[in-house]
């Protein structure tokens, strides 16, 4: 017979024959770590200890997931270090109690164990997971600006060694069950629940006196803490981290420190050190900004909060026009999601390349069996014939960015749509209303701006035209869910949202070159401010000639700036330095690899700057994007503030450490931001002039997001 702890969060069952207590985590909906969880665990341990002859404990879960970590709602609001450290220490003491009760404890991982959940599993003596790819274990904390605060930085290195633990903790890795077994994060795999339970019982019977390695004085795998080898390992970890993050992320930095410091101490005291580092991060501005966007906003976007919903996607067959990189990728993504796909192009060789691309992508899906892979590929048909698109329920047009061409294919193809069909145009800049002018039914016409490579990029920018119906948007969103993309929904206008922000970034990067700043400092300013890719490098990757085409297009919309950068880029394209694909751009290339910034850039300068302070360069690179984001809010392109953050970070690599362009403004203070941009406008040009929206907010002392 099962009953639960007084607060109902843990189900309790005692097998009087085996003398094994089973604690089943059963919080409402999901198992998340908060005060209630702590109380339940405490009550469960009190109960277990009171069982006659207790010989072992199994911890499992009543939910699909085992335990997915901390209750972020609570953590997000916490600013008081003294309070938080007490709560963290209390949880740490509970985990400690579990592993020192004197009986073997097995974590029966029937679902994912992440963050504080995995730390609970680490506080068990043995971890057995179901051998299912859906199950993930790991410590993703640093990706949210914090670090594992319930023993993760201390138990994991003591369990699997310093290097292995660094790999998991610093990258916030989550591993699927089989890989987790290989990495030592779980000890054994079981084929099903029954096998898992018997394995757990068998392990308990065979390990009556189980103790954690850190309680037996066992040496940790690999180099000993304090040894020269360990020192080198930590040193290299610092170097690799700095190489990757340019110092923009304290969380992994402090995680290395917590690990190294803690390993020199007794286990219990090491927990204090970890707790302090955790609290330092969790109460920091950066963690708040990262949590707000990367957790709350992202989850809200994933759940389509505040957006129209339909249960009737009514799409079985998807037509894709244009089989270039984007079209081919889209075909694969749609087929993977179970749609029948017709991929059309006007050139046979393009179709062949697309087919090769899809085949190659399919072989990358290792978890698929031969039959499934064949079925997936079988869902895609490649065609030169317009008629093959007959009866498509959705056509995604992904031809070149040319209004006339797009009009032409729309007029040709729209009649092929099924009766229930709707039309999507994949474009990065052209206004949907302009494209929809030739449509027979603009209510069923929507913009879907995908990002390349489409297999990898999560974001989908959905553009709603003036006449696009709610129903069409709802169906587009349902489609988004099927292909597992993260949507933002924005209003129409040249460049929509992400392209405007991204263009501002790269063009300003080029402008800094034109002003005569050292390109090396420009790139460093980008990286050290947290931008995922520095401006000149990413400019080369998107190809300068495409941007020049964009300038031409932009001029027809009055959106191309009259600044030195434009001529610089046009000149570079004319000189054959069109970017990475051309083998020459802002960087020099050999064999397709960057070989340093092109020394000729210094001759492109039109002046000599007063100073090239990195801080100011960084403030310009982020500021110019934040201004554009604010203008998008003012224009109504951004309808929900969260989309500005999610779009910028997941779409164009805006500095995730800031939480996004609007959070960046908030954090500086709107008035301070306005003052700084006014200064920049006076010194560097009117493109820095803050929009009215910001001036009004500054006057009223408003922020985009509720301050925490």
């Amino acid at each position: 017979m099962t009953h639960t702890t007084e607060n109902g969060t843990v189900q309790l069952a005692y097998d009087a024959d085996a003398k094994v207590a089973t604690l089943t985590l059963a919080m409402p909906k999901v198992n998340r770590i908060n005060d209630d969880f702590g109380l339940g665990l405490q009550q469960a341990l009190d109960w277990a200890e009171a069982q006659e002859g207790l010989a072992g404990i199994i911890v499992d879960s009543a939910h699909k997931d085992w335990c997915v970590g901390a209750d972020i709602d609570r953590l997000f609001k916490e600013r008081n270090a003294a309070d938080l450290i007490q709560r963290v220490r209390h949880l740490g003491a509970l985990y400690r109690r579990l592993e020192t009760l004197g009986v073997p404890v097995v974590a029966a991982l029937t679902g994912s164990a992440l963050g504080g959940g995995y730390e609970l599993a680490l506080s068990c003596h043995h971890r057995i997971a179901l051998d299912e790819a859906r199950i993930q274990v790991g410590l993703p904390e640093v990706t949210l600006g914090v670090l594992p605060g319930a023993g993760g930085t201390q138990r994991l290195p003591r369990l699997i060694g310093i290097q292995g633990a660094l790999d998991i903790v610093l990258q916030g890795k989550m591993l699927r069950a089989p890989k987790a077994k290989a990495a030592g994060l779980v000890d054994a795999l079981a084929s099903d629940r029954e096998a898992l339970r018997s394995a757990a019982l068998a392990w308990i019977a065979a390990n009556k006196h189980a103790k954690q390695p850190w309680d037996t004085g066992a040496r940790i795998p690999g180099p000993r803490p304090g040894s020269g080898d360990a020192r080198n390992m930590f040193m290299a970890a610092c170097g690799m981290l700095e190489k990757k993050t340019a110092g923009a992320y304290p969380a992994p930095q402090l995680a290395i420190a917590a690990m190294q410091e803690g390993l020199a101490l007794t286990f219990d005291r090491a927990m204090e050190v970890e707790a302090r580092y955790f609290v330092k991060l969790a109460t920091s501005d950066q963690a708040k900004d990262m949590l707000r966007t990367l957790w709350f906003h992202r989850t809200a976007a994933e759940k389509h909060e505040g957006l129209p919903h339909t249960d009737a996607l009514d799409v079985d067959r998807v037509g894709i026009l244009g089989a270039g990189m984007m079209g081919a990728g889209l075909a694969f993504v749609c087929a993977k999601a179970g749609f029948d796909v017709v991929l059309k192009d006007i050139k046979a060789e393009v179709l062949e390349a697309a087919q090769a691309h899809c085949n190659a992508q399919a072989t990358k899906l290792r978890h698929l069996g031969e039959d499934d892979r064949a079925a997936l590929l079988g869902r895609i048909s490649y065609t030169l014939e317009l008629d093959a698109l007959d009866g498509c329920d959705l056509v995604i047009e992904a031809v070149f960015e040319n209004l006339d061409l797009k009009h032409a294919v729309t007029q040709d193809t729209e009649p092929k749509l099924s009766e229930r069909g709707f039309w999507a145009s994949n474009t990065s800049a052209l206004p949907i209303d302009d494209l929809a002018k030739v449509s027979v039914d603009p209510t069923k016409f929507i913009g879907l701006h995908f990002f390349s490579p489409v297999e990898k990029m999560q974001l989908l920018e959905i553009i709603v035209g003036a006449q696009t119906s709610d129903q069409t948007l709802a169906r587009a969103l349902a489609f988004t869910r099927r292909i597992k993309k993260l949507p933002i929904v924005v209003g129409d206008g040249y460049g929509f949202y992400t392209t405007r922000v991204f263009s501002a970034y790269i063009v300003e990067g080029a402008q800094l070159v034109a002003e005569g700043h050292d390109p090396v400092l420009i790139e460093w300013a980008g990286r050290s401010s947290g931008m995922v890719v520095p401006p000149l490098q990413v400019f080369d990757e998107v190809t300068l000639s495409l941007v020049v085409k964009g300038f031409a297009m932009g001029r027809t919309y009055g959106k191309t700036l009259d600044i030195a950068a434009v001529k610089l880029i046009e000149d570079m394209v004319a000189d054959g330095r069109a970017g990475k694909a051309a083998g020459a751009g802002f960087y020099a290339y050999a064999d397709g690899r960057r070989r340093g910034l092109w020394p000729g850039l210094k001759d492109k300068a039109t002046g000599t700057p007063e100073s090239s302070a990195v801080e100011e360069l960084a403030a310009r690179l982020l500021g110019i994007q934040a201004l554009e984001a604010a203008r998008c809010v003012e224009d109504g392109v951004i309808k929900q503030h969260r989309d500005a953050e999610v779009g910028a970070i997941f779409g164009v690599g805006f500095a995730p450490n800031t939480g996004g362009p609007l959070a960046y403004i908030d954090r500086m203070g709107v008035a301070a931001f306005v003052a700084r941009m006014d200064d920049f406008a006076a010194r560097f040009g009117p493109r820095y002039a803050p929009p009215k929206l910001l001036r009004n907010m500054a006057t009223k002392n408003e922020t985009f997001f509720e301050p925490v």
Partner: protein
Amino acid sequence: MPDAYLFDAVRTPRGRGKESGSLYTIRPIDLLAQALRALSNRNELDTSQVDDVVVGCVTQTGDQGACIARFAALEAGWHVDAPGVTLNRFCGSGLQAINDAAAMVASGFYDAVVAGGVESMSRVKMGSDGGAIFDPATQWNVGSVPQGVSADLLATLHGLSRADVDAFAVESQRRAAAAQAEGRFSRSLVPVLDINGLPVLEADEYPRPGTTVEKLAELKPSFEVMGKQFGLDALTKSKYPQVERINHVHHAGNASGIVDGAAATLVATKQKGESLGLKPRAKIRSVAVVGTDPILMLAGPMPASRKALKKAGMQASDIDLWEVNEAFAAVPMAFMQELDVDHARVNVNGGAIALGHPLGATGAMLMSTLIDALEDQDKTTGAATLCIGGGMGIATVIERV
């Protein structure tokens, strides 16, 4: 030759030097950095003007290796121009740092030098830096015994009984407790904080107030077994043939405590200090260091003090207050005997028996305690002295200004 002045002195509380001690989780570099930061903050010190940071630290390995002075100054956020050097004169290191600073300033080559000390005995175990002192070859060529044996030999030579040393220890505890209760350490004491600014330790945690002679009498002498059964007493015999039998009187209750802590002081010329907007608290009248017999080891404070007094043109009776490090109870007791100094003028706020002895930091801590006590009692002259391993002694004479 310019005079050297002491402008300020700060110290951290002393934490028990064990894994359960409060400061065990704090890296020694952070202990020292916090002392340095406290010194610079409260004096609004322009650290670019610090010509050197001289730090005593005995066990310079592990967390305390690689010139901790330099990295602690940087960790403290001090100006990159302020360099750092770490020195080791065993238990005299902290005072050596001050004496060196005084000599550097008095030489005219330096204007402002920060002197201090650090030791985290919980994290870096005494002796873990190795050394040749206990090599058999050194034994036969030089002679060397564990300090406890030396301390008991010193007690025996001075006729100090177990009851005498225990009574001294109880008095040390009583004085320390009274000083704590009356806030007499508060002028120098700066709390140790964690990375969140939360207090880790705000007061010395080693004292055991209420210690009685009866309680101490229950403790077994610590060095009797090694002295007698392991024959270590015999290693003193060739030098001290007149001692028939060493009387083992010392134990954990009447010897200095193993603790963690750090201290920092500012030594400068009067002119430099004034240009930094500071007022001197004391003038350094003289300094001295001596070598004595390494077997008896702990008898250095007497000759060192005499040497310093002579340099200052003073007598022992001219000194208002003394700080004599309580490495073992016999040390200050032998000192009082030999220099004929009344206990009322020695270690007025207790000593290392009650408060602990963070090896490299103690000398600098004694200086902070001494200045505070002189100011409290409105006295003028003071001296600090310590016994030192390897048979050395160190002393510093100061005068309030």
